[in-house]
């Protein structure tokens, strides 16, 4: 029997998974247009290598990976590039980013697919092939996969973990993939295994997916591998890499370190499947499994091209009349799509049609009663109510003392809070505030440095100029004196000496410094009015960000310690 470990906390939200696994997955029909963002990965933004008017083939490179931590982007189908421009992204911010718009021609004409002989290639060549195929973590993190396949120096790789946890309610894309593509997943796992040479390979699946567990066991046996398929208790967030690693190995990834530092690494099942397709079939990552569920007539998993507008995907499910929005991702960590024109990206795993009945509005927020439910539910062993208190008071230093950056935003704390406090929302706000301030500080620092540098240079130049002038004047005077002496004139003349030149130089420098001082005084705010305006500006910026973070709804009480 495999020995499992526990992590603290965790919650059991209703699964709502059965709806979408009632039937096998299907391939989504091609939409009228695909909007493929270039920056779908953590790391460098891929550079576009096509232009409007180009014809592209299915699988053709359209965005070239920029830097090592970056992943290429490919055309999901054959057709015409209609535009390369800024389009709204499937991100809570609703910001736009450069995307390639492709109008499919319906012919699905592939590029020449070239399988990679990964068994006989050196490690870096295989990694490059994975990078070229545009593979990123499909569990949601979108970190370029090849970048995770190098073991830490001096730390032997113990366990390679394949994450089939899928703990979020509603989402079943990994479940269905494991049921249908078990062998592909196992073969993809073997590729990573060969790259990283771990002692064991563990495939962790929540025990609420018995079909997937059976399918994976069968696939492992069929491929003749010795991977352990381990059923882990269904406890959200068991599918989070850190928590799954803890359950399977008993090891906790130390804060601020990578999992390879403790000899583990974790990949999502969809990711390793994509690796296998890329290397064995020569098909880059151009589509993925997406669950369409929630308030729809026909919940189901669709193999959909990357860049499919979510309105088209939603239509496949047949949204019910009272649908009032779409949640991208799961209900615990997902976000509401800024609008239905946004399209899917590599990280999009689920689309939940929302209605007031399925997701009733949150009840009014009450003051924290310090019951500690949130702390008991937190899988990261944090004290959410303390972080909440200090986020609210905008005492961000304190939130950091309470380890706010260890928060994985899993939502367990908000889920259990009897006072219905949207805790995670406060943490997102606090984190973005801290980032913004760090950014401001850096920007201010570099601006200040630039200014000082420029000033110093100008002063040096001025001083040099003054020195030249003084030298010239001295030379002039010396010449005159020499002439006078030559003519025998006995007029007393002041002979400029080296000392005089020195004095002139000093005077010039002093003058320059005086000017600089005056300038500095002019630049620096001297009255409180200016200071207040500055502060006001900062405060306004904070308010604006607070609004964006969705915190404008006043709490039921106004016990803000800072007000």
């Amino acid at each position, binding site marked *: 029997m495999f020995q499992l470990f526990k992590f603290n906390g965790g919650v059991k939200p*209703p699964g709502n998974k059965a709806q979408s696994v009632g039937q096998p997955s299907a391939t989504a029909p091609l939409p009228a247009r695909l909007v493929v963002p270039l920056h779908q990965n953590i790391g460098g933004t891929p550079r576009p290598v096509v232009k409007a008017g180009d014809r592209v083939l299915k699988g053709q490179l359209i965005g070239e990976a920029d830097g090592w931590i970056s992943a290429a982007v490919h055309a999901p189908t054959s057709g015409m590039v209609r535009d390369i421009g800024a389009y709204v992204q499937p991100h809570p911010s609703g910001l736009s980013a450069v995307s390639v718009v492709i109008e499919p021609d319906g012919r699905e004409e592939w590029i020449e697919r070239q399988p990679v002989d990964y068994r006989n290639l050196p490690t870096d060549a295989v990694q490059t092939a994975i990078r070229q195929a545009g593979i990123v973590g499909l569990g949601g993190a979108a970190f370029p996969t090849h970048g995770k396949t190098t073991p830490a120096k001096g730390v032997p790789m113990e366990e390679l973990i394949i994450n089939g946890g899928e703990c979020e309610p509603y989402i079943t894309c990994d479940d269905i993939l494991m049921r249908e593509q078990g062998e592909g997943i196992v073969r993809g796992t073997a590729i990573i295994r060969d790259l990283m040479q771990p002692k064991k390979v563990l495939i962790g699946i929540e025990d609420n997916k018995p079909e997937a567990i059976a399918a994976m066991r069968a696939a492992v046996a069929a491929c003749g591998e010795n991977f352990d398929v381990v059923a882990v208790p269904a406890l959200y967030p068991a599918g989070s890499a850190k928590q799954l690693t803890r359950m399977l190995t008993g090891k906790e*990834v130390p804060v601020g370190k990578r999992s390879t530092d403790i000899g583990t690494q974790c990949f999502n099942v969809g990711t390793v499947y994509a690796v296998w397709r890329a290397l064995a079939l020569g098909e880059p990552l151009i589509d993925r499994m997406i669950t369409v569920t929630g308030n729809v007539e026909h919940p189901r998993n669709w193999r959909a091209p990357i860049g499919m507008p979510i309105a088209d995907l939603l239509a496949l499910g047949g949204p019910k009349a009272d649908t009032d929005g779409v*949640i991208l991702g799961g209900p615990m960590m997902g976000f509401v799509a800024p609008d239905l024109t946004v399209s899917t990206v590599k990280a999009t795993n689920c689309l939940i049609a929302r209605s007031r009945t399925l997701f009733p509005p949150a009840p009014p927020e009450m*003051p924290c009663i310090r019951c500690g439910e949130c702390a008991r539910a937190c899988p990261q062993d944090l004290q959410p109510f303390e972080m909440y208190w200090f986020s609210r008071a905008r005492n961000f230093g304190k939130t950091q003392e309470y380890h706010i950056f260890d928060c994985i935003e899993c939502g367990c704390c908000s889920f259990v809070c009897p006072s219905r406090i*949207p805790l995670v929302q406060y943490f997102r706000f606090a984190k973005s505030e801290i980032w913004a301030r760090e950014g401001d500080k850096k920007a201010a620092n570099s601006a200040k440095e630039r200014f000082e540098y420029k000033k110093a240079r100008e002063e040096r130049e001025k001083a040099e100029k003054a020195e030249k002038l003084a030298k010239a004047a001295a030379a002039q005077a010396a010449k005159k004196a020499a002439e006078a002496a030559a003519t025998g004139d006995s007029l007393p003349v002041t002979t400029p000496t080296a000392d005089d030149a020195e004095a002139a130089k000093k005077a010039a420098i002093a003058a320059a410094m005086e000017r600089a001082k005056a300038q500095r005084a002019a630049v620096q705010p001297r009255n409180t009015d200016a200071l207040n305006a500055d502060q006001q500006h900062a405060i306004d910026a904070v308010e604006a960000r607070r609004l964006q973070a969705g915190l404008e709804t006043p709490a039921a009480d106004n016990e803000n310690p800072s007000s």
Partner: protein
Amino acid sequence: MTLSSPYVLKETSVTWVMTQVCLALLPGIAVYTWVIGPAILIQLALASLAALAGEAAMLKIRGKPLNLFLTDGSALLTGWLIALTFPPLSPWWLIVVGTLFAIVVAKQLYGGLGQNPFNPAMIAFAASIVSFPALMSQWPSQDMHLGLVEHLRIVFGLSPHLDSLTAATPLDALKTGLKLGEEAGASVAGLLANAQTFGHVGGRGWEWITLAYLIGGLWLCLRRIITWHVPASFLAAVVVLSGALWLYDPREFANPLFHLFSGGVMLGAFFIATDPVTCASTPRGKLIFGAGCGLLAYVIRVFGGYPDGVAFAVLFLNICAPLISLLTQPPVFGAKGRN
């Protein structure tokens, strides 16, 4: 609509939590009524009314939404705890004044729900016992069996024969008995053998009420409304300290069972010290908090000037709670690997 995830929430609310605690008090209240008489029901009604009225008035003055906060159940719970800790035959105004003081001063003036540093019910108890020591020590004698009408008359001051009906609490009786009997060589064992006053373990009748509190409290633990830490360490501290002294000199000190089942220990351990707002917040902190309450309650009870020490012990530990929490922060996930 919720703006940011999670979009699903567990079915729970402050009202639900408070209701569970009130429910857990019901067995205790039932036995109390059966043993002592209906006076406790009158006091509960008075305290509830005073608590809700005080809360409503303060919410109104502070401009807070009435229906949201009045229905959260916290004021009601405070009222109930006050009723259960005050002498049941005390005059009506005593409990009303005490409850209003708890709600208005100890809770609302500090900012209302969740903001009060001290347990409001214990503030009410402490303030009353300091201000009205005589009234606060008039406990009904076990031998009177009066009906609802008589109790109503007593509570509302219509019946003058209070003194003849009251008796010392077992704790009081023990303390006074020991003092009086110092020369006569009275021992705890001898005094406790008087079943008229002391019943089987902790005071006749009271031991059954206490047992009902214990059952209600265990139910709260099982349902995870409260964690086991505070009650366990509270009771353990009482047992260890009283046990050590009892072993040292059984003539001077009562046995642990007596201390567990008399006075406010059981109610305090499960229902009062566990108040989340005023308790330490970390698991280890809760253990320290509970143990501190238990030790101090025993020390005040046995060596101090008051018959019972639970209220003062809890209030003292309330002061220490923030510091205890701060010093007992558990390591975060992955902290073990940190250097």
